[in-house]
């Protein structure tokens, strides 16, 4: 290819290539290197230490619960988001004015500022001052310390996550539902189907591929949920809500252990990559099969 002909293309692609290289790939390899080294913001150059950092992760009490917390949170958050999003999509499917309005309402949490709304939630869940507390008092119970109880913290965060994200699931499901031909739904009615049969024969199968998408999207977002933890619980109480993403932050910028943080980052990356790869492989095969 003559250089002259390739010039415009190269020129247009160059900034992006440089940006990716300098701001993405370079730091990525930095993380990989750090994960296997012992450097921790020290002036001394890093030394290679093999898997030592990973061993420390597994051994240390503070970090042991992290993976468990992360998976538990992800499970609750993703299932909640999927179910709520699906119900919202099914309920608001018909194009009425009311439904349009309600769809916008469903998207409000997604669209609004994360940190600001988290502070609102914090205020609402405050056991002394928050409105939730009053409700409990009305019914004669003692208010629960939603974010302060070790057993309650993670589920509470999951609920807030669902509140934030179910709109996204809803939008994706609605797109999937819109794809079903009107004639197929009429055909099934003529064949004798009630609403339950229609759901079973036409709509749910149409949603199956989308559901997989939504699952993966929600899962990755759940793994990346930093703001929730950072604003509301800071990993507590007693590390009950320390998820992987927060642990990375803590190790690097609270405890100044860059090497451990890098190792955790690598674990995080492998997790996300595994999910994406599985999705691509499974989805592709499913598409080809049908």
């Amino acid at each position, binding site marked *: 290819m003559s250089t002259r002909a390739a010039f415009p293309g190269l020129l247009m692609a160059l900034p992006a290539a440089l940006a990716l290289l300098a701001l993405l790939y370079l*730091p990525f390899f930095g993380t990989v290197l750090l994960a296997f080294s012992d450097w921790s913001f020290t002036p001394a150059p890093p030394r290679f230490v093999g898997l030592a950092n990973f061993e420390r992760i597994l051994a240390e009490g503070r970090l042991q619960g992290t993976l468990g917390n992360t998976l538990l949170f992800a499970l609750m958050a993703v299932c909640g988001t999927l179910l709520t999003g699906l119900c919202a999509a099914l309920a608001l499917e018909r194009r009425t004015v009311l439904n349009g309005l309600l769809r916008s309402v469903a998207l409000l949490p997604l669209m609004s500022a994360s940190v600001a709304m988290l502070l*609102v939630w914090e205020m609402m869940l405050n056991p002394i001052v928050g409105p939730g507390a009053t409700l409990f008092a009305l019914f004669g119970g003692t208010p629960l310390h939603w974010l302060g109880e070790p057993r309650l913290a993670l589920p509470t965060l999951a609920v807030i996550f669902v509140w934030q994200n179910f709109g996204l699931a809803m939008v994706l499901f609605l797109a999937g539902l819109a794809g079903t031909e009107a004639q197929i739904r009429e055909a099934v009615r003529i064949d004798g189907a009630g609403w339950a049969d229609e759901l079973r024969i036409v709509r749910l199968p149409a949603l199956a591929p989308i559901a997989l998408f939504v699952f993966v999207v929600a899962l990755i977002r759940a793994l990346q949920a930093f703001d929730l933890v950072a604003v509301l619980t800071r990993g507590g109480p007693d590390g009950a809500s320390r998820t992987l993403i927060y642990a990375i932050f803590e190790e690097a910028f609270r405890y100044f252990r860059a090497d451990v943080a890098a190792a955790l980052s690598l674990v995080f990356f492998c997790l996300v990559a595994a999910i994406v790869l599985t999705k691509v492989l499974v989805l592709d095969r499913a598409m080809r099969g049908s």
Partner: protein
Amino acid sequence: MAGTLATIAKLLLLGLVALPFMVMLTVALTDSGLMLLLGGASQAELTLTHLGHVLRDGAYLTYFINSSIVAGGTLLGQLLVSVPAGFALARLRLPGRGLFFAAVLAALVVPHEVLALPLFVGMSSLGLMDTLVALILPSIASPFAIFLFRQVFLTLPQDLLDAAAIDGIGSFGMLTRIGLPVAASAIAAFAVISLSAHWNDLLWPLIVSQTEASRTVPLGLINYRNEESGDDYGPLMAACLLMVAPLLIMFLALQRHFVRGLTFLGLK
């Protein structure tokens, strides 16, 4: 009958969804709204004192400006870098196109949190800590944006470009005159996603920003919450309201684009 029942159920549930917003509005704009909710007061008056309190706080203004600069600057940078790259990948002669595209795809898998630490080290060694530049720079490399615009430009009919070539229009002309109009709505959708993501970003500013000068609104809010103890939530909620308001306005104005952007994001 079932219809009205369903409608009532829908309204109730979505009322619950909207609850935090209502609470925020109540506390921010009334003098004892919170107490009213708790049944401790019998009435509350609408007031702008909390808002005034926040707006008079010069620091908040700084945060607002910083956030705006960061969000806007990031978007600008992303567009300047990704739109031409997407066009080149889709439509121009590019040696190593396959490799470049593969690199973009691979980069899509990498979550940005994984890069935070080395980027911090890098920014620090370049002396860029605590600057808005440091806040903007790393986000400019957006594999998602490059991928998105490539997809958009792939839909351009080749005939159109051939005709332009015969007319003597060069590649840059094709990008600006033919590509951009077509990409306009994708750009709008992307803009909505990018602006809200960077307006809301907490992690990176938390790492980079050390003084008030470079603080963004999310940090400012956290700061305010941490320092201002006590039970007067009014100013805090007012500050939250101010942070949320621009996003909601943008959302209401550009809802269609937002939904389309979300679908792109999901199908990524």
